[in-house]
């Protein structure tokens, strides 16, 4: 997993963040996050928005460089909207929702990832991971609650029943840091995981992929294009995606026998890109890496007062964009729970629910990523025959198209089996465990989006005219009506009512449905809220 930079002037110059000196003596902090990557930064910002201060250690002094995540899914965008970064991401990102699959020289299949209107966020945007990280760093710093310590490397950690003792190394010397809660966001090679000797098991795929970021002015539509066995790269697959700044991501499958060193040679990469684009299309290589992929995870993510999030907890192959998007959902899931525990409103059972919810979510991401990788990279003659049979049939026969698997693109986990949910008897709409569906609404005549009105705490959606309600503390009602009405959101399309399918809906601070009610019965709502706080 290494890259070569090409000469030229990249549109993005990675910032260098100042490394603070080590503290003078031992320190004790409530929340320490290891890793200022996509997930650690998202978590730090989420906690800060809830008033929780954190220290974030990172062994580097910049953002993720080179070709890593580009596809940010709708749910991640909704989370970033809640955190205040949605506008920047939607403005800069390349919006897309369609994909095409080609087999040899023909189009076999095309798909639409968001066939339904009435959502603020698109199915996907493409945005370089470094932009997301740089904006997260700025937003974290602006809260005044996140202490970012660049070039502070976690060297050792030993768990305690009430936290962890950390040994940190910096260019100016080492120090000891006591943490009440340790949040391991230190990526696929997690030092925390290693220090706790936790097995990280799954599958390694015997295949290699050349990931090239290429600057060019090209006429391809903003769609995800995937080729199986194209004439310009016979026997292998190729993926093309547009990013901002006229940057294009091209993945070439190389096979297991390929020599990663030789494949990174710029002349060789240039020749591959040229044969794909044809002569006469000027381009410049910005970054080239050769990867082989793995799908693996920890068995459990919560280990006493140490919690794993993102790639340190689970790693997937990138087909389906489930790595970063899954990790962002981890942060979304843990932030409000930890804040509630630190405020003394909930016990550690609420933290245990992170395990109950995110382990199945990671398993689902691994299942999809593994199946996609097996389809893209068949390992046996039988796998090859079935793969090619599917592609033979897909062009003319609709039944075969759902079998084509060039990546099952990230969808948010439905936390259906969560202990925090109160089961209900409604037979349609977003049930317990589902991320709240968005819908267009208007407030005092001003058009907007439902998710923007949910606030930071628990929210009770009431599909009725405003009225006094007897609700548990920290549950805010939000009235939604089919006609304009003072003090209510106007559901002018009827989509909000239809998408929730119940007269009243309790949403968690991470915007997931946790219970639905037929009547506004105070005892029932209080019981569901208790259960959602891990007191059930």
């Amino acid at each position, binding site marked *: 997993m290494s890259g070569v930079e090409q000469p030229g002037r990249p549109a993005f110059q990675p910032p260098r963040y100042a490394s603070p000196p080590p503290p003078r003596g031992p320190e004790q902090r409530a929340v320490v996050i290891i890793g200022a990557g996509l997930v650690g930064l998202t978590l730090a910002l989420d906690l800060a928005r809830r008033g929780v201060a954190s220290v974030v250690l990172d062994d580097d002094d910049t953002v993720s460089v080179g070709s890593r995540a580009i596809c940010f899914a709708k749910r991640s965008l909704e989370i970033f909207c809640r955190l205040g970064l949605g506008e920047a991401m939607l403005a800069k990102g390349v919006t897309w929702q369609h994909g095409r699959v080609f087999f040899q020289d023909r189009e076999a299949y095309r798909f639409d990832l968001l066939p339904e209107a009435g959502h603020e966020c698109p199915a996907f945007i493409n945005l370089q991971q470094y932009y997301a990280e740089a904006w997260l760093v700025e937003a974290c710093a602006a809260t005044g609650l996140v202490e970012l310590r660049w070039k502070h490397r976690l060297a050792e950690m030993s768990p305690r029943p009430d936290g962890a003792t950390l040994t940190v190394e910096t260019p100016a010397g080492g120090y000891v840091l006591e943490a009440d809660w340790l949040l391991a966001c230190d990526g696929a090679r997690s030092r925390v995981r290693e220090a706790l000797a936790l097995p990280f098991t799954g599958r390694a795929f015997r295949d290699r992929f050349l990931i090239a970021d290429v600057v060019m002015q090209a006429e391809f539509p903003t769609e995800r294009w995937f080729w199986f066995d194209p004439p310009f790269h016979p026997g292998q697959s190729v993926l093309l995606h547009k990013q901002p700044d006229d940057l294009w991501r091209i993945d070439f499958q190389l096979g297991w026998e390929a020599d990663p060193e030789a494949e990174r040679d710029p002349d060789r990469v240039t020749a591959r890109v040229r044969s794909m684009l044809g002569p006469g299309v000027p381009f410049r290589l910005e970054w080239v890496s050769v990867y082989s992929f793995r799908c693996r995870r920890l068995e459990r993510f919560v280990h006493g007062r140490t919690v794993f999030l993102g790639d340190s907890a689970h790693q997937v192959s990138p087909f389906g964009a489930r790595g970063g998007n899954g990790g962002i959902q981890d942060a979304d899931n843990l932030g409000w729970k930890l804040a509630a525990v630190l405020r003394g409103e909930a016990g550690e059972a609420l933290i245990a629910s992170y395990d109950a919810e995110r382990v199945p979510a990671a398993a689902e991401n691994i299942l999809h990523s593994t199946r996609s990788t097996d389809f893209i990279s068949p390992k046996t003659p039988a796998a090859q025959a079935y793969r090619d*049979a599917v592609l033979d049939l897909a062009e003319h026969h609709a039944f075969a198209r759902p079998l084509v698997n060039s990546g099952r693109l990230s969808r948010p986990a439905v936390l259906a089996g969560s202990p925090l949910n109160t089961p209900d008897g409604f037979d349609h709409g977003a049930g317990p465990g589902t991320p709240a569906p968005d819908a267009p609404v208007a407030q005092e005549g001003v058009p907007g989006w439902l998710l923007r009105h949910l606030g930071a705490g628990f929210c009770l959606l009431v599909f009725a005219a405003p009225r006094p309600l007897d609700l548990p503390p920290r549950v805010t009602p939000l009235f939604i009506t089919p006609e304009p009405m003072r003090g209510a959101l106007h559901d002018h399309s009827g989509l909000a009512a239809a998408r929730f399918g119940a007269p009243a809906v309790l949403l968690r601070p991470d915007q997931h449905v946790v219970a639905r009610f037929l009547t506004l019965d105070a005892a029932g709502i209080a019981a569901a809220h208790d259960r959602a706080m891990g007191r059930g």
Partner: protein
Amino acid sequence: MPRLNTTPRLADPDGLLEALLAAHQGLDEAASRRLDARLVLILANHIGDAEVLRAAIALAAKPGPESGL
């Protein structure tokens, strides 16, 4: 509940095998395998019932009596 039907049902068994072999005529190993795979996928979609298909896969993987069919 639909179950995998393993009673003899083919009106012309010899004719079926003949038609299958004719379809494979002149194909090399890989092409033959791919044709069979297409056939399996077409039939699987025609059957459409996941439980029947799982039972069929289990029977094909283990044609002996212990498969419980």
